[in-house]
């Protein structure tokens, strides 16, 4: 049913820290890997080995330059479904394939009933839905619904693949409907925000802003030792050799 359920008490979602994200794309690649085999399988690619390789991914990492001159900085920006509370991607669906779960707020596409009309992707302001040409259906982030409740997995693995893969801990998973949850506290402490709130979709996922720069106060230290010292100790020479060998 594509009418929206009553607001769910449980609101599972992600909190993405734009301060810590280094833009390594580990979340995107692990997402692609997990979802090529799980709920979203197949997650097909077009022309994978040709001149125009592209395919269906559920998570994309942009890198932006923000601000000007000495104040400018790079901000890496992962973008995926925000599991909105009142999203039009669900209500526009003519078949009922697109739905929001009343139990935990996850927004899913039923792969067995989607007709691939693409209307839901038009209705999403966040570009979170990607049509799978190989499968003829719409694909989107499932919040790894096939991991988070999976009792055959170790407890620490029962989080979305992107959260598990992130090497910098920039992605947090939890219940944003519970004000006492770790993610809710994090959002409160770090002033987490919504993307494009003016659309009124009420995203569950939150983003944490980059922290204020500290390098203005720090006086640059003079470089104490020349970078390439002459032949130092045997140990130095050994490490120099290792470094050279490894970088070949």
């Amino acid at each position, binding site marked *: 049913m594509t009418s929206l359920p009553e607001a769910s008490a449980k609101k599972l979602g992600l909190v993405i820290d734009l301060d810590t994200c280094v833009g390594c794309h580990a979340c995107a690649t692990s997402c692609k890997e997990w979802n090529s085999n799980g709920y979203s399988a197949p997650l097909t690619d077009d022309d994978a080995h040709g001149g125009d390789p592209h395919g269906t991914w559920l998570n994309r990492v942009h890198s932006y*330059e*923000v601000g000007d001159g000495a104040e400018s900085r*790079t901000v890496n920006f992962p973008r995926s479904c925000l599991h909105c509370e009142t999203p039009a991607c669900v209500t526009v669906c003519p*078949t009922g394939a697109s739905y929001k779960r009343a139990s935990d707020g996850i927004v899913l596409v039923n792969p067995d009933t989607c*007709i691939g009309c693409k*209307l839901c992707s038009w209705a999403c302001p966040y570009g979170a839905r990607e049509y799978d040409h190989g499968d003829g259906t719409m694909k989107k982030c499932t919040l790894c619904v096939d991991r988070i409740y999976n009792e055959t997995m170790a407890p620490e693995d029962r989080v979305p693949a992107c959260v598990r893969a992130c090497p910098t801990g920039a992605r947090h998973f939890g219940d944003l409907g519970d004000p006492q949850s770790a993610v809710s506290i994090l959002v409160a402490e770090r002033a987490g925000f919504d*993307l494009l709130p003016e659309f009124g979709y009420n995203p569950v996922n939150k983003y944490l802003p980059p922290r204020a720069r500290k390098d203005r106060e720090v006086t640059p230290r003079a470089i104490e030792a020349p970078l390439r010292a002459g032949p130092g100790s045997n140990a130095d020479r050994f490490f120099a050799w290792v470094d050279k060998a490894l970088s070949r």
Partner: protein
Amino acid sequence: MHPAYSVIVFTTASGAGYGLLIWLSAGVALGLVPRTPALGFTGLGIALSLVTLGLLSSTLHLGRPERAWRAFSQWRSSWLSREGVAAVATYLPAGALGLGWVFGETMPGQVTTAAWLAIAGSLVTLWCTGKIYSSLTTIRAWNQPLVPPVYIALALGTGGLLACALLPMFGADARWAAAASVVSLVVGWVLKRRYWTAIDSAARTHTAEAATGLGHLGTVRPLDPPHTQPNYVMREMGYQVARRHALKLRKVAVGLLFLMPLALLIWLLAPLPAFAQLTLAIAAVLSGVIGVLVERWLFFAEAEHVVVVYYRGGAA
């Protein structure tokens, strides 16, 4: 937005079909057309064939056409679903009208009632088609109140042109159809001009700064793209025709869809041999239909989806 050719063909063909259905039904209900079975059979046959052709063409746009029947289920929330339900429902009175017209009325008033219901069903279907687009807040050029009225006016215009070509073939008077077409086309022209003014002057309020929430740090400019080749989102939502081309195509659309048919309709009022009248009317239909195709293509190609700000920065 990438012009979806099957959708463009669908809305053009079924629009003209519903327009013709509306005018023939009105002709019957108001006693403007003779109740000759041949006219009923051919006229309603053409109208319903165009509608059906359009609906079939729209399923080509689907990834899983064999599941298309599922689209009738979500009429409570989805305009696309409502359009499907209304389209199928309209076949019933249209069919009843056809039976009554071709085989003779069995109940008094049956044909008139069916005609009014067919008109209502067609208008509701066209309205739903417009609402599919105008309800999308993500696409400024579509999220305009004028979109459904333009769809209806252009359907009435092209359907009226079809009626002008059809009626004389059965020796029926087509002057009322010509008048109806003139009014529809003029109204369509005025609405479309207003629509173009509205989308040209609409403020671009959705910025990359708001989309990323980073505006407090300064302007947001794409540095490294998330992928090396365009993905579905960029191919589908990132398509945009150059402004220069769009303005040229608007002129082409106005010429073919409004000016040319209107000129031909005026010419039709002159006393002409039947063959010349038919030729003029068919020329008007062709011009109008090609004009609608250009107008529909532009409707997609000029529309910008808000998601583009993630990829190119700026505002949408």
